[in-house]
């Protein structure tokens, strides 16, 4: 993160402007209440405060090094005490050295400065605390902003995936081709046509209702996938084959709604649509400590040129997982020997 003082010209002006005000306040106190001669009072407050303004810039790094995180800790307190001691000693020593080299012969002034060192030190502690608090406030504000941004992004992605589900349920190719199959079946096998219509309706209904919820059980999601595959199976017959191996322990685990649908659509689009042989989709769900692992393997024609859109659906899923679980290693995929493999890990806990 950029140093807040140097983010823009404006912030530099504000920072040093604030120190000029502090300088003027101190000058007035010295001049009007303590009767310190004008030049001395001015030079003294100017040097001390300008030196502190420089020290204050360094303080930012101490604050960054000791972030608030989960509240105040002893470690943090110790770090701040030592940095305060160092900064104060450095500050007073340099200021005193500067003043004494500006007025080498003014014994009266140097005496005054030496006398006022203890009160200067107390003032320094106050300034340290104030500057530090200021920085922490900025950090907290930034943190809040980032959180809000992440949340907005999550909502946006969710809406996007809902939209995609909505699109896939009315994916024109899928829908009209399925209806064409129904039309054909009404002549050759009316009973099967009816089954197909019911399945299609159930699939559409699930997609509409699931999109408003964020999490569903793996069981429910797989049921819908099964419907989808059954419909495609009517269209493609022996060209499409699928096997599910689902560990019973996975069935009630909650997973993000419709996270699996794009994976199967991908497998159909790049596998079945582009191939002339049989494409088998093999899905395995197993449990690992703290997470459910879903593995999908499908055949694809490695000679068919890659179409646009490969990977877009997958990276959308990855982004959604990152926002939900704060991890980027939950989705892996690779193509090897005419097999496309996707490994999806769903942790049990999400934010």
């Amino acid at each position, binding site marked *: 993160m950029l140093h807040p003082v140097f983010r823009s010209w404006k912030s530099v002006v504000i920072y040093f402007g604030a120190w000029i005000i502090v300088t003027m306040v101190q000058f007035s106190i010295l001049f009007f209440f303590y009767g310190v001669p004008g030049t001395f009072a001015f030079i003294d407050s100017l040097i001390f405060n300008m030196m502190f303004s420089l020290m204050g810039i360094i303080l930012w790094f101490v604050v960054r090094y000791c972030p608030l995180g989960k509240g105040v800790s002893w470690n943090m307190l110790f770090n701040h005490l030592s940095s305060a001691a160092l900064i104060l000693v450095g500050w007073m020593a340099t200021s005193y050295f500067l003043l004494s080299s500006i007025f080498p012969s003014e014994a009266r002034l140097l005496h005054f400065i030496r006398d006022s060192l203890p009160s200067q030190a107390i003032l320094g502690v106050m300034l340290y605390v104030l500057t530090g608090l200021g920085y922490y406030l900025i950090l907290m504000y930034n943190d809040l902003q980032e959180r809000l941004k992440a949340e907005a992004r999550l909502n946006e992605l969710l809406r996007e995936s809902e939209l995609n589900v909505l699109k896939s349920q009315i994916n024109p*190719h899928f829908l009209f*081709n399925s209806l064409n199959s129904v039309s*054909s079946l009404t002549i050759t096998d009316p009973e099967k046509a009816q089954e197909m219509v019911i399945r299609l309706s159930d699939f559409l209904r699930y997609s509409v209702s699931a999109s408003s919820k964020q999490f569903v059980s793996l069981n429910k999601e797989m049921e819908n996938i099964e419907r989808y595959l059954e419909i495609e199976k009517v269209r493609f017959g022996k*060209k499409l084959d699928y096997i599910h191996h689902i560990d019973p322990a996975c069935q009630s685990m909650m997973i993000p709604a419709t996270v699996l649908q794009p994976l199967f659509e991908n497998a159909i689009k790049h596998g079945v649509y582009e191939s*002339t042989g049989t494409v088998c989709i093999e899905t395995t769900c197993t449990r690992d400590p703290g997470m459910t692992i879903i593995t999908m393997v499908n055949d694809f024609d490695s000679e068919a040129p890659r179409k646009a859109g490969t990977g877009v659906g997958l990276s959308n899923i990855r982004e959604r997982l990152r926002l939900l679980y704060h991890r980027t290693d939950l989705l892996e995929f690779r193509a090897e020997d005419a097999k496309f493999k996707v490994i999806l890990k769903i942790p049990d806990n999400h934010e």
Partner: protein
Amino acid sequence: MNKYKTLIIDDEAPARVIIQKFLSAYPEFEVTGEFEDGFSGLKGIRETNPDLVFLDIQMPKLTGLELLELLENPPVIIFSTAYDQYAVKAFEMSATDYLLKPYSRQRFDQAMQKAIQSIKTGADNKQPVNALVQTMDNDPGIIYRIAVKIRHNVHVIPTSEILYIEAEGDYVMIFTPAGKFLKEKTMKYFETHLDPSVFTRIHRSFIVNLNAIARLELYDKEQYVVKLKDDTVLKASSAGYKTLKEKLNL
């Protein structure tokens, strides 16, 4: 009486079945072959010389439209598609008949009447087909493969394998590691239909695959050449060189 030979080319079995059922009302037509992909469909058309073909658009290996481009003497064709905005637009503009899935028996009969008329009058089908191909070229979509013909063999080249394309009059020559292929299309067509993040036109006569480039060299003042990984050297115009530099982030 000789029956009209009919082929059905569609990758979905139910879609083929309904055509058969509807067609059974026309005893003068006989289904002599069914094919599940564009490649075998093309072979079927060439070998059996049918009178009528039912052709689906979306198919593996070779789409119905890619198949169409490769036919020298196309038979009467009735297209079918579930959903393809551009194809539908192209059909309308070229006055070719098509069926939108799912379709009714009445709609099927209508298409058959037209087809029967075309068969009986022995109309030249090449013209509407050419018009169709030409309108399809206006489809702004990116292409990912190119079907080319060498005598009677058809090669499908994934565009990622193209090294560069050179203008050859009304044709272009497509260079790949596997050899060169002539294609009856314009440079303009490839300029607009190849993925612009991979291909760029560097000269009036050259479109190059960015991944095939080894280096750029200054040849003469203001004259640059592009050297490919296989040591081919291509000229670049100054405008072409500029866009090339932008795409390579130089």
